[in-house]
């Protein structure tokens, strides 16, 4: 640790921490970030740039870092790419690797891109790789992506756990620097619930980098410690360190991500890696401080060129000298303070080259530098930087009064620190749709009108000077507490600090003005955007900053232009002779810094991604090798294979078993709604197309539901349990939407009706027993129900007990056979299934799945809403107009289906299709045409909706919607397939037992 100072800083000099970077072992101290520990070892080179693969070093000291993107590796599944070295806390055994280089950081073959840089200007993708078109996806894009890039995502599933938590508070303070701490202290005094969050491991913000500042008689460090102690002792205050406020969502809903284990040497067994906080705050204080801008000059991206404030932080907070011989380039007074502190840490300050004109600079920083005996050169600029993997010197120039630059002296140095002024961090204010105003004096945008109950404090709104920032924070905290309903007066603070000015002039250094700026003066380090790229974009006609941003990609990297955004605006303003304020801003979007996918997913992954609904027969089916399909969230048994049967064989056997003897089917997934009230029948009259007034108690009827536009929406059997009580069944997938539609009409259209609805889908289990022997099976199980045809005819309903379980026994059939649907309370569903299966043994009962159910219903032409209809079929189109109550004056959809277009000739109608070759099974969805071998585009007149092989009929069957279909009976039409058009005969949709003789027995 050759660059470590002998004393001072907030690192623990007694605790050594060993880590590796690119396979080499290093030593740091507890409290170091990876960046400070590498710098302490003299390592600046930490990455290669995105496009040109230029060697890059650490630039900043916090979340603004654009260059030092690192992959941290714990194990094969825990490889986190694109972390900023400046935010990675080191622990014993940390494995860190650089990115975007091959074979090594020092020797990177990709750097050959730099030689071709004249060919890789802004928009080069769009210009170069235009032809041939088909090469883009196969050749150009994959290669560009491989060469230009960031770290690699791990290939294994994320083994970590992520927590999510909601929180409410009266005052949320974002940022625990001087303004944020003062705001939290003031607000907490009022008794308000306060949450204070900060992205760093330690709270204190800029105070942690102070050397000589005092607050109320305490050193900055002691004041921070005392303040945190006070806040921690207050049970109404929650302190969240390592917590980034990444997004400002409507109504003061702030997204925070708390990093819980990334800094730990060994992972605790029960802690989540990160926690997503969704804070709902009555009032918000944004005390997010600011970010220093680099100066822009040729070679400003070389390793060893840092931000002045970062160099000062490394010296004062981490006890690390960023270099032994430092050239300081000043575009802002803060550079003087950094020079003084770096000098105090033992670095030699080779020169302070001030970009501002002679005589324009005065103030505490200037005075401090002078009295420290540092050499200050005014009206200076940097023309070139020497050194490749590390700075070795800087060529200065002098700007004359005429604006011309003459070559000045060459300064030998191993480090250059620059300050172009500070940009208030207005990201969250802007995300909340607050307005911004340009502050000419500061040279940056500051918050103006707010859109939420929020306020900015301290430097995030341009207030500088330690006393001013503290008191501004205190006022904001008190203001927020008062606005949330608490009596509160702002605390008062008094501080002594150097209080240098933080203003600057965004843009490039003077010699870079003009139509063709010198090469390699970088604006956006992370996306390799230079002043030339910005100039080129404007020469090519891009005026809007939003267009320039997208064309050059400036500000579009993972750092979202934290250090580059305002400089880019300044350059564009200069080049187009506009005021910076008139160039406008691009939109700030969340997240402030990258957030893991894991924390958004939280527990919603794997089995917990989506709920699974299981039927009462589920375990029974699993035990017998049933094959399942997903129907919505339901797991339904598709078929029950016996022995080595494939699906085809199993379905054939199941279909034959039902028609030849008896089968059983789990129909519990049907939607069920109980409709109750003195107007229940009237409600159903208005809602369904059918007439319900004349339905007797303990009778059922097949109902069709349309929307008001006249198209079929759902169907199902409805039972009248009592004068004022109906049991409505819906399709499996339609239960929720039918329920919602009922609520809508009851609550908003027919408020005169006395009717209530309750979802009972989960309350009833249903076993369908179907086939000529169905009555015989049930007869063994019921004692108090007369199953005879006279007592329980088709569509009749009986109530009593089955296998000792209370039941609503409905005689209904979705197979065309004698059939019953046995409803029992859901908790008895599995027992009922077992009882019926046992009772059915002597009749060789066949459990069947959804596939056989589909075939059996299709043999009878029973439709499935959503398969045979698609939201554009009227009841007449679907062949179920017989269900419509003819005498009703109104029902939902009656007027809609009365429109001329819905009654016109030539509408698509549901018909049956029989292939000439009985073995050919049509493809569902296939297009129907009237004549074969038409040239493309041929005229399509419909499509196949259902198609199966019917074992009972010994041939294939299909249903289709065909324009004017019912007028084409017995005609031959065609189904267009890639292998040739298939001739089919138009027939009735009822393929089996058209007289219904099997039903009424």
């Amino acid at each position, binding site marked *: 640790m050759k660059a470590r100072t002998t004393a001072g800083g907030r690192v623990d000099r007694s605790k050594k921490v060993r880590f590796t970077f690119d396979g080499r072992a290093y030593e740091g101290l507890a409290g170091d970030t990876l960046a400070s520990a590498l710098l302490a070892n003299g390592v600046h080179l930490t990455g290669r740039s995105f496009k040109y693969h230029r060697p890059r070093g650490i630039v900043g000291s916090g979340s603004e870092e654009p260059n030092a993107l690192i992959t941290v590796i714990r194990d094969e599944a825990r490889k986190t790419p694109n972390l900023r070295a400046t935010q990675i806390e080191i622990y014993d055994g940390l494995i860190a690797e650089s990115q975007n280089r091959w074979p090594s950081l020092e020797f990177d073959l990709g750097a050959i891109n730099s030689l071709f840089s004249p060919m890789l200007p802004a928009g080069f993708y769009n210009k170069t790789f235009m032809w041939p078109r088909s090469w883009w996806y196969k050749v150009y894009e994959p290669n560009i992506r491989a060469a230009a890039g960031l770290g690699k995502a791990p290939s294994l599933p994320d083994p970590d756990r992520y927590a999510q938590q909601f929180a409410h508070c009266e005052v949320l303070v974002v940022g625990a620097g001087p303004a944020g701490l003062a705001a939290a202290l003031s607000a907490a005094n009022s008794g308000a619930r306060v949450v204070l969050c900060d992205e760093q491991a330690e709270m204190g913000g800029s105070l942690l980098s102070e050397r000589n500042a005092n607050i109320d008689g305490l050193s900055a460090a002691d004041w921070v410690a005392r303040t945190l102690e006070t806040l921690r002792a207050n049970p109404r205050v929650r302190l969240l360190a390592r917590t980034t406020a990444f997004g400002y*969502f*409507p*109504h003061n*809903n702030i997204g925070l991500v708390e990093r819980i284990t990334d800094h730990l040497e060994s992972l605790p067994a029960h802690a989540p890696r990160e926690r997503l906080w*969704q804070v*709902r705050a009555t009032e918000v204080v944004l005390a997010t401080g600011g970010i220093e801008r680099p100066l822009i000059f040729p070679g400003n991206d070389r390793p060893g060129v840092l931000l002045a404030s970062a160099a000062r932080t490394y010296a004062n907070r981490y006890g690390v000298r960023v270099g032994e011989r430092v050239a300081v380039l000043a575009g802002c007074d803060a550079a003087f303070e950094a020079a003084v502190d770096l000098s105090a840490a033992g670095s030699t300050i080779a020169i302070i080259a001030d970009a501002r004109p002679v005589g324009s600079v005065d103030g505490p920083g200037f005075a401090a530098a002078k009295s420290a005996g540092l050499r200050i050169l005014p009206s200076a600029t940097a023309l070139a930087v020497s050194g490749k993997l590390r700075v070795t010197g800087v060529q200065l120039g002098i700007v004359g009064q005429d604006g011309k630059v003459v070559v000045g002296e060459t300064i030998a140095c191993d480090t250059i620190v620059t300050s172009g002024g500070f940009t208030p961090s207005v990201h969250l204010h802007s995300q909340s*749709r607050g307005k911004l105003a340009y502050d000419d004096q500061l040279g940056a945008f500051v918050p103006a009108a707010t*859109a939420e109950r929020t306020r900015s404090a301290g430097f995030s709104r341009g207030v500088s000077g330690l006393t001013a920032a503290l008191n501004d924070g205190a006022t904001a905290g008190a203001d927020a507490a008062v606005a949330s309903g608490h009596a509160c007066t702002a605390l008062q603070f008094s501080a002594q600090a150097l209080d240098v000015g933080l203003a600057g002039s965004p843009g490039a250094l003077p010699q870079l003005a003009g139509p063709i700026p010198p090469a390699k003066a970088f604006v956006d380090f992370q996306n390799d955007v230079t002043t030339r790229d910005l100039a080129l974009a404007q020469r090519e006609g891009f005026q809007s900053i939003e267009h320039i941003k997208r064309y050059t990609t400036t500000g579009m990297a993972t750092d979202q232009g934290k250090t580059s955004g305002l400089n880019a605006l300044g350059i564009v303003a200069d080049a187009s002779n506009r005021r910076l304020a008139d160039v406008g801003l691009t939109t700030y979007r969340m997240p402030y810094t990258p957030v893991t996918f894991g924390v958004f997913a939280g527990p919603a992954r794997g089995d917990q991604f989506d709920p699974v609904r299981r039927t009462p027969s589920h375990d029974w089916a699993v035990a017998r090798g049933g094959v399942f399909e997903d129907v919505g969230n339901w797991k339904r048994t598709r078929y029950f294979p016996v022995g080595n049967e494939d699906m085809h064989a199993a379905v054939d056997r199941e279909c034959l078993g039902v028609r030849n003897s008896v089968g059983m089917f789990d129909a519990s997934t049907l939607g069920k709604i109980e409709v109750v009230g003195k107007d229940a029948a009237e409600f159903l009259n208005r809602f369904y197309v059918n007439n319900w007034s004349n339905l007797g108690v303990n009778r059922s009827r097949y109902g069709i539901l349309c929307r*008001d*536009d006249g198209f079929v929406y759902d169907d199902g059997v409805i039972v009248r349990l009592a004068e004022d009580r109906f049991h409505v069944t819906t399709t499996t997938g339609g239960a929720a939407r039918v329920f*919602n539609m009922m*609520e*809508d*009409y009851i*609550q*908003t*259209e027919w*408020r005169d009706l006395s009717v209530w609805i309750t979802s009972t889908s989960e309350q009833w289990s249903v076993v369908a027993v179907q086939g000529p022997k169905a009555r015989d099976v049930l007869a063994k199980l019921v004692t108090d129900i007369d199953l005879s045809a006279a007592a329980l005819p088709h569509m009749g309903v009986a109530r009593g007990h089955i296998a000792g379980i209370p039941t609503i026994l409905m005689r209904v059939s979705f197979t065309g056979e004698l059939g019953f649907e046995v409803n029992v309370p859901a908790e008895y569903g599995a027992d009922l299934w077992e009882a019926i299966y046992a009772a059915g043994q002597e009749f060789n009962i066949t459990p069947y799945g959804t596939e056989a159910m589909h075939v059996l219903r299709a043999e009878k032409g029973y439709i499935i809403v959503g398969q045979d209809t698609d939201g554009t079929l009227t009841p007449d189109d679907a062949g179920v107009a017989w269900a419509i109550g003819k005498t009703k*004056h*109104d029902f939902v959809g*009656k*007027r*809609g289906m*009365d*429109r*001329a277009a819905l009654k016109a000739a030539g509408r698509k109608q549901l018909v049956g299709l029989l292939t000439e070759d009985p073995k050919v099974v049509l493809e569902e969805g296939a297009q129907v045409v009237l004549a074969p071998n038409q040239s493309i585009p041929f005229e399509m007149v419909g499509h196949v909706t259902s198609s199966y092989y019917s074992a009972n009929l010994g041939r294939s069957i299909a249903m289709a919607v065909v324009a004017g279909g019912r007028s084409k009976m017995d005609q031959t039409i065609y189904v267009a397939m890639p292998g040739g058009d298939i001739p089919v005969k138009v027939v009735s949709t009822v393929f089996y037992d058209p007289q219904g003789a099997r039903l009424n027995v």
Partner: protein
Amino acid sequence: MLVIHCPYCGPRPEPEFAHGGQAHIARPHDPANTTDEELLQFLYLRENPRGLFRERWRHARGCGRFFNAIRDTNTDFFVTTYKVGERPALPGGAQ
């Protein structure tokens, strides 16, 4: 995530609610005697204003009730919410 004031339950987070389209589109009292033009209006034609908009919401994962709201589509924020059958004036007095 907005906070929406259910007129029956009070402020609740947005995920509890379902949007229900433009408000005050009444089903005709006697649909059989509506013209095709009136039916077209009822079934299909909806406003999409920039600014204040009366719309339906339902506290679907709460009390289940439908209610109406005035929302500013510029800001996404609600001006007020009200029960079915009511119709408060827009800010500025317009109905």
